[in-house]
């Protein structure tokens, strides 16, 4: 008995897809035949650019605005919009994330709360809402973009590390809850990837990366694409590290 294949008109929602890893993930999923919701908070231009890259290549995409850190029904809005445009949302990539770095001794409540709220709590809310159509369809793919930071220490990022480690914990438990319905839940843990979030980091960070280079958003997107595919139907509750060997 194997996993049923992806239904027709299946749609994927990628949060934080106006740039960086999120944009690359949106493009990769569209290339694999998903209709894609390109989620963004305020960078409408970036989101439209991602949509254009997808439609120029023959795919289907829609930019959908919403601040995932806002508790008030944003998850429902985003998913409903996509259901109306394309069809059931059967893949969710929780990629939206922020940093607010500070040593723990100096970190204030607001810096802690904001990062936990956007990087972890928002992912929970999105997951809770997204599971409804997935359970009905007996098919679903939830992919949480975590980080090597979390499992691994990174001074100045206690909030980020807590959120990302929390995301991995949540991934495992939710995976166990819904596995019998053909819904897989996995995490991807990028290392140092060449995006805006890491552009100011010094080259010395490569000292701890066996591959001696930063990764590309496309390399992370390829991992997400696999986990969202029919081929990954028996992969669930796992974390796929895309980090050039950093956590080996």
């Amino acid at each position: 008995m194997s996993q049923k294949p992806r239904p027709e008109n299946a749609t994927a929602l990628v949060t934080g897809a106006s740039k960086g890893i999120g944009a690359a993930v949106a493009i990769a999923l569209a290339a694999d035949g998903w209709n894609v919701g390109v989620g963004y908070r305020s960078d409408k231009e970036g989101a439209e650019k991602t949509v254009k890259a997808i439609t120029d290549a023959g795919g289907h995409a829609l930019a959908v605005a919403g601040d995932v850190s806002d508790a008030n029904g944003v998850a429902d809005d985003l998913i409903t919009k996509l259901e109306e445009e394309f069809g059931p949302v059967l893949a969710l990539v929780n990629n939206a994330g922020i940093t607010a770095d500070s040593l723990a001794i100096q970190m204030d409540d607001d810096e802690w709360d904001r990062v936990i709220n956007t990087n972890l709590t928002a992912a929970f809310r999105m997951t809770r809402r997204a599971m409804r159509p997935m359970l009905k369809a007996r098919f679903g793919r939830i992919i949480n973009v975590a980080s090597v930071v979390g499992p691994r220490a990174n001074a100045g990022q206690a909030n980020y590390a807590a959120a990302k480690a929390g995301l991995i914990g949540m991934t495992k438990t939710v995976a166990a809850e819904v596995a019998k319905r053909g819904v897989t839940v996995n995490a991807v843990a990028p290392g140092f990837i060449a995006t805006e979030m890491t552009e100011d980091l010094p080259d010395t960070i490569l000292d701890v990366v066996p591959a001696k280079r930063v990764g590309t958003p496309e390399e992370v997107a390829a991992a997400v694409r696999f986990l969202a595919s029919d081929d990954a139907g028996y992969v669930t509750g796992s974390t796929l590290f895309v980090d050039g060997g950093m956590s080996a």
Partner: protein
Amino acid sequence: MPETVTPEAVETTVREALVQFGPEADDIKLDATFEELDVDSLDLAELSQIIEDEYGVKLKGEDVGKIKTVGDAVDLVVQRAG
């Protein structure tokens, strides 16, 4: 708009949902326990979603923990919708 909430209508909705989860239609009697029917907590969570969509009645985790039989589920929905 919520459907008319009669015990008969709710029973039909609950039966149709439970059949999707595996039990044989003939086994779904009002006094049958969810345990006997091999209906687990995820199935009941999904049943709650169907009931919410159909009748606008929200069943929380603690409600679902208290209902043991098909009849319990029907009674609770009728009570909450009334």
